[in-house]
């Protein structure tokens, strides 16, 4: 099962751009307005944004598909040596697919496939932080079967399971005392299970309130592969073999409020609380230890983070909606444990988007997101490596929404 799915995972190298390695690009329409969607309905993507609202559509079946195209750069500068270096990241393409099916007036079933965590950072083989990271690719695909139920006119609830396929690949140099081209390659994939739930409450005719929770999913890798490329004199000390590691994909709680200002204009605010403090350490437990190869403990000590979002949507005419939004995304990484493996700064996100409906039951959605990473000066103290970091990303997205 796991092996079979690998080629699919291979299609989706994602670039970290939200806090930590979270990737918040789960709906083109929502992305266009600051990636809000907990307190209003925009289509089958509610499966992700708030499963309580899946039944709010008048049609029987609603389908949304889409993808984003991430181009991003991170620049590093060491303040004491003056060295400046930058990443050469491959383009990331997170995607989503949602399907909802109305079983009856009150009960709706849905399926979501999306990629809320991932990272693809490439610093190069010989940059000054090569002993920490050369490149990393981290991918997680969520499969989420969900049910929603309308309790009454104003209140609905929804819940579902998440089945997660995670995979990662890391290359880094090995700073052994003999040889100057020693490196290690770590690779593995594993699945995990979690759940999600949401409540929507129509407080007044104009005000909607949504609350969602997505549980933490631990990717507990038991048989990752580790390969060493080391000086022949060290080969016995660095045996190729298996390793175990656990990567937590943290829980997120979201509270959103929307306000229908007029028939054409809707505005909303939202806050995500991401429980990054669960990510304390990335530990590699090697099946075979030697005097030189001990289990590797890499403290991360992330802190919980908050993302604040505001956005709005304006219906220009029957066939055109335009959107805009902004968010502030706090980095969960402290200045003492900032590792270039996940070079996540505090981010400002500026978004715009539109939907065009050439037919009644088809919407073509587009969004653009510009992320301005705030400069920070941080160090990964356990490795004695630090400096200034700055990042930017430009992310266009496209999506389709059918219903019948």
């Amino acid at each position, binding site marked *: 099962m796991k092996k079979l799915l690998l080629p699919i995972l291979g299609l989706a190298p994602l670039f970290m751009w939200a806090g930590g390695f979270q990737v918040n690009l789960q709906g083109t329409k929502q992305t266009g307005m600051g990636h809000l969607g907990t307190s209003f309905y925009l289509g089958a993507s509610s499966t992700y944004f708030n499963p309580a609202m899946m039944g709010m559509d008048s049609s029987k079946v609603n389908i949304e598909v889409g993808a984003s*195209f991430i181009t991003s*750069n*991170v620049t590093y500068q060491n303040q004491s*040596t003056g060295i400046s270096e930058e990443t050469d990241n491959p383009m990331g393409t997170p995607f989503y697919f949602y399907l909802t099916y109305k079983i009856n007036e009150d009960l709706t079933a849905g399926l979501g496939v999306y990629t809320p965590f991932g990272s693809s950072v490439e610093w190069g083989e010989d940059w000054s932080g090569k002993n920490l990271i050369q490149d990393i690719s981290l991918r997680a695909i969520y499969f989420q079967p969900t049910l929603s139920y309308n309790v009454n006119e104003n209140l609905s609830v929804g819940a579902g399971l998440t089945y997660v396929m995670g995979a990662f690949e890391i290359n880094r140099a090995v*700073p*052994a005392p003999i040889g100057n081209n020693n490196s290690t390659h770590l690779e593995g994939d594993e699945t995990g299970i979690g759940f999600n739930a949401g409540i929507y409450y129509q407080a007044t005719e104009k005000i909607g309130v949504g609350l969602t929770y997505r549980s933490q999913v631990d990717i507990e890798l038991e048989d990752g592969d580790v390969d060493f490329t080391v000086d022949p004199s060290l080969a016995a000390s660095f045996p190729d073999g298996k390793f175990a590691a656990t990567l937590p994909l943290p829980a997120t709680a979201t509270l959103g409020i929307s306000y229908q200002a007029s028939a054409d204009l809707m505005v909303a605010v939202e806050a995500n609380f991401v429980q990054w403090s669960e990510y304390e350490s990335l530990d590699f437990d090697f099946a075979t230890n030697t005097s*030189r190869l001990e289990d590797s403990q890499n403290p991360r000590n992330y802190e919980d983070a908050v993302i604040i979002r505001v956005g709005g949507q304006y219906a220009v005419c029957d066939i055109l909606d335009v959107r805009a939004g902004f968010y502030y995304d706090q980095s969960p990484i402290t200045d003492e444990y900032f590792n270039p493996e996940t070079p996540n700064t505090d981010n400002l996100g500026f978004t715009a988007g539109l939907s065009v409906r050439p037919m009644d039951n088809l919407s073509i959605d587009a969004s653009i997101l510009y992320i301005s990473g705030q400069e920070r000066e941080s160090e990964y103290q*356990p*490795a004695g490596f630090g400096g200034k970091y700055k990042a930017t990303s*430009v992310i266009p997205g496209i999506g389709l929404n059918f219903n019948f």
Partner: protein
Amino acid sequence: MKTKKLLYILPLAVLVACEPEFDDVEFNGGSADFTRTVAVGNSLTAGFQSGALRRDKQEVSFPAMIAQQLQKVGGGDFKQPLLADGVGVGSTGNAEFGIFIKADCQGTVGPSPGPIASAGQLDQFASSVGAAGPYNNVGVPGAKSFHVVAPGYGNPVNIQAGLGNPYYGRFANPLDFDETMLGAAVRANPTFFTLFIGSNDVLSYATSGGSGVDQTGNTDVLTYGSNDITDPNAFAAVYSQIVTALTANGAKGAVATIPDVTSIPFFTTVPIGTDAVSQAQADQLNSALAYGAYNAGLDQVAADTSNPFTKAFTQQMADARKISFTAGQINTFVVMDPSLTDLTVVNPALVSMRQIRPGELLTLTTPGDSIRCAQWGTAKPIAPQFHLTSDEIKSIGDAVASYNSTIKSIANANGLAFVDANARLKELATTGIVESGVAFSDAFISGGAFSLDGVHPATRGYAIIANDFIDAINSTYGANVPKLDVASYPAFEIVQ
């Protein structure tokens, strides 16, 4: 198709425009003038590594590394008396050491250091490069503090007679062979200097297993042997003389303390005891045919108060040098200790031997195969030149502490940048030092900081020293001199 292309091109275009960039870091020399820098010192300043001076290692001597960084803030050229390309030349005429994969006497294969050629480039001592001076690097392997002010230290006649130093001789002033190292440094008219001298004032005593004399109390350096410890007052006088001369025209500078040489891998690598010994082995060593007889003999001498040669020999002294092995545990090795009371006059079998005491040290040159396969340390005592007694260690430590307090007070009095190299070595030996993901320790070879002679730093170790100097320069002179990326310097390679 066209829209798809646009999808790629558009964000790329925006991203190029908004690409995150940093302004270059502003570096400057502060209140110091690096137009003409001079480095005065010993092998550490010369760039000596792995048992020899060699051109490619001279090029990464710590003063050369500093000079390379100073050039980014207006520093001038840094001319070194480089050897010709080759295998280098060590103090015994040896070539530089490399790491070979070898089997020991028990057939265990592992990395092991050894000279990379049968002999070093001794011819380099025969040709003078002095005419191309003055040199900015006046680092002379083997130089003690007082050698810096010793006239004739580079004179070929003295070198011929074994009184001079061939490393200095090859670049000494051909117009004045008697010019001191200090004179050569002053002749370069420095605006800035580094001074890192004094290690050899204790090192040769230490590496020879304490075979010299602790000359504390005797300031007449002309009476010293080559393995003696320099008197702290003599050191202070010389150090002060050097700094006075170097600062005479207003030059600024940086000085460094002497590392406590007993914490370098040369002394901390060879274990002072056995692996756990078997009952049979312990019984045999303790038997009346072996150390049992020695112990009984000691008791006998202690009990005999009539012999005028040994009546001062007490039971306590006898007990202190008795030798016994306990099965199932580590036992310290047996060594010869010439400082023990000589009892061979009354009993030729009672040679001056004892077991090593905790805290004492064996040198890296202790023949490992003799211990592993020829019963050194167990049935046969280890020769004293491989052993530092606790008294010898104390003599070294006292001298180093005294030199270092002199260095610190002279640095303060002259407003010089001060590098506590001794504290850094302690840090290396206790917590270790981490640079860009490379963890350094004081362990031999695997620690990464020391070269293959166990005494001198490896290239990365020298880069750490250079950075310490730069830190001190920056904080003392309000400068912002760029530091080195230590991890970017090479680690050891295996010699094929």
